[in-house]
């Protein structure tokens, strides 16, 4: 016993020194880690507000860049639902292809940051999220010509909701999406192994993200995948449309929002936002920054990562970019058609416009170049009066959501909306659609808040509105001004839009006259269409 005690006491001192040394080493290692961590997310200064709009973060980091690169190859059935011959996922979901060497070569609208999802904690490897330009920059596809990229225009091709379901389907596939399989796919695609940091981050990210999606299945339901992503009965949004408050109901009110919400809205165009006091189609949000913040939250940003200065500044800069952003002129996009515009018809059409449209929408003051508001611009027209699809203003929880949204942000949050900037609330209620300026009217297709009218000719009731059509990467129609549709679905114009379905109505807004109704004047409407082409 004594020998044992002596032996132990002989080892006691070295053991203590070893313990102290190891503990000190652990502490040094931790401080070294903290130092390195502080260098991971160096603020990325954007050269301009435009760059922030195109590539800036919105707090919506989704997955590591390395995973983003290989996910479509790992799940072709989800990311190429029309088959490989119809092009890659960028083509099939209507994203705008980026340039090699710019922003990691990603399509326009994806941001690359060193922030982790949800918390915004720094990451040693890049993560991919969304920028404002994903939904608010569009290609105008012209017949027989190269497409033109228009910043600020609502992306009329992007099938974002379907793409998110494709991503969710892939992430929930526990057998095929594992860190090892990701590593194999990456090596196969790039001919090199993932870095240690990539592997570590994928192992940390994947279980948490997958668990998040699994935990939320009760609210978000099982995602669709494969060919179902193009089925209009299963995916009722279709290209260029979202249900803007559905995710907010899920996130803020913790409700599934699977029933009572058919509030489909097209992704809006963001020209000259300085002309708008209240936004959203129903005029429910009064501050342009708050509108963008709520859009970011609905797309996956959290109040936690919106605290990160780079993220909040990115959002603020992107919003600032749209304050004076001018839309293109008709002549910029369609010079030949613009050359054929009849000046006399335009002059007559202007008179029709001033009589029938300017009170609500205003008009460009040719002397100052500023948009001149009409007496009713900014007014919310009751649904009974305008008679367009009512789902957007009658969706379930529309009365309770704003209070909950306000309470959702902690005091002092840099992007917390002011209560008086949200309706219903102290500033009144909105049970209708707001009269908004229509700068660059020709580049706002499809028309009405739910995108149910393809062309200006149909919107002004010069031509009958089509009950059904196909949507996707439609060609732009410079004659009727808007989107043209094929008679049968095509690989890139695939989505069957049925205006008879709930939330899709193309009725209402019968100005100047209902089609072939009392006072209907074909010649005046042709003049009006000619003027609208020039209204920039």
């Amino acid at each position: 016993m004594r020998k044992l005690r002596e032996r132990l006491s002989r080892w006691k001192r070295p053991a203590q020194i070893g313990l102290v040394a190891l503990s000190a080493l652990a502490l040094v290692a931790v401080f070294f880690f903290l130092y390195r961590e502080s260098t991971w997310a160096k603020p990325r200064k954007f050269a301009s507000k435009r760059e922030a709009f195109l590539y800036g973060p919105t707090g919506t980091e989704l997955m590591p860049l390395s995973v983003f690169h290989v996910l479509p190859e790992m799940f072709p059935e989800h990311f190429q639902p029309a088959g490989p011959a119809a092009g890659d996922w960028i083509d099939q979901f209507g994203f705008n292809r980026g340039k090699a060497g710019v922003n990691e070569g990603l399509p326009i609208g994806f941001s690359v940051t060193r922030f982790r999802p949800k918390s915004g904690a720094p990451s040693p490897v890049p993560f991919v999220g969304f920028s404002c330009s994903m939904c608010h920059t569009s290609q105008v596809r012209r017949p027989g010509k190269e497409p033109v990229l228009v910043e600020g225009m609502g992306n009329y091709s992007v099938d974002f909701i379907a793409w998110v379901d494709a991503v969710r389907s892939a992430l929930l596939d526990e057998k095929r999406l594992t860190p090892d399989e990701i590593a194999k796919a990456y090596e196969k695609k790039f001919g090199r192994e993932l870095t240690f940091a990539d592997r570590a981050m994928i192992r940390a990210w994947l279980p948490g993200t997958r668990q998040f999606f699994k935990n939320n299945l009760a609210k978000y339901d099982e995602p669709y995948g494969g060919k179902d992503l193009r089925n209009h009965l299963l995916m009722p949004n279709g290209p260029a449309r979202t249900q803007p408050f559905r995710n907010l109901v899920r996130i803020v009110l913790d409700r599934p929002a699977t029933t009572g919400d058919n509030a489909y809205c097209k992704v809006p165009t963001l020209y000259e936002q300085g002309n708008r006091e209240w936004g959203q189609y129903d005029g429910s949000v009064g501050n342009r920054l708050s509108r963008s913040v709520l859009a970011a939250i609905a797309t996956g940003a959290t109040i936690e990562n919106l605290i990160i200065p780079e993220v909040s500044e990115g959002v603020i800069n992107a919003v600032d970019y749209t304050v004076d952003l001018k839309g293109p002129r008709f002549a910029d996009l369609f010079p030949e058609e613009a050359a054929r515009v009849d000046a006399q018809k335009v002059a007559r059409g202007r008179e029709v416009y001033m009589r029938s449209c300017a009170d609500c929408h205003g008009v460009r003051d040719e002397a100052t170049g500023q948009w001149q508001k009409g007496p009713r611009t900014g007014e919310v027209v009751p649904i009974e009066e305008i008679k367009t699809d009512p789902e957007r203003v009658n969706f379930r929880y529309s009365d309770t959501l704003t209070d909950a949204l306000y309470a959702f942000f902690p005091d002092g949050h840099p992007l917390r909306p002011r209560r008086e900037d949200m309706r219903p609330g102290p500033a009144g209620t909105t049970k209708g659609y707001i009269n908004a300026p229509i700068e660059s009217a020709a580049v706002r297709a499809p028309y009405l808040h739910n995108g149910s009218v393809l062309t200006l000719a149909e919107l002004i009731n010069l031509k009958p509105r089509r009950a059904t059509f196909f949507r996707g990467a439609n060609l732009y129609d410079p004659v009727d001004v808007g989107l043209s549709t094929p008679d049968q679905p095509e690989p890139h114009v695939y989505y069957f839009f049925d205006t008879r379905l709930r939330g899709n109505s193309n009725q209402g807004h019968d100005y100047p006259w209902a089609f072939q109704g009392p006072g209907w004047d074909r010649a005046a409407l042709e003049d009006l269409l000619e003027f609208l082409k020039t209204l920039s």
Partner: protein
Amino acid sequence: MDPVESRSRITLTQFTNTFVPFALLLAAALMAPELPYILDHHRAVYTIDALTYYRAVYTIWLTIAFMIPALALYFWPGESDRKTNYWRLCWTFAYLAYLVHFYYTVGKVFHWSLREVYAAQGFVIATSNFLDTAWWGFDLALAWFVSSRAKWIRVQRTLAHLYIPATFFVSAVVIKHGVVRWLGLLMTAALVVGIAVRLIRRKKQRHAPAAATAGAA
């Protein structure tokens, strides 16, 4: 109080018994926020990023955890070198943890801006926190580098051991809830028990000579 007087060397055992848990717990306090489980479940209450928030929280837990033995030892009666050394080590490591907490709050949250600190915390709490930091550091400097038995040192130390826990009591027990409140209660209990035992022992010692004298008579 007695611990002031001891200037005996700290043994390796004493250092190991305090430094090892301190180092490992501090490492854990700084690294635990990296765990996806914690990050993914973070819900912003304040406008602080998640890592800073949890590092500030966990380091104040560690501070109080080391204050508990330090306060108990300080007020506990007795004059052994062992007791005094453990007090000094615990009091020091508590302060080091507090400095890390101070870095995350004043440095990371308030960007080293007095204006921001006072705007967020108000005059009383902000001043009290700065006083804690300065006084505690001053007391430790005396404890490590001054061997004087001067009365003012003993008085300021006792006052520091009452004032600093009092401010922690307010911020941990009165204002906050959850783990930090329980730690604050434990700290308070350690302090109260230490003082109570000291007073009882002193009372007994005062009576003991008188009783012995009476017995002899």
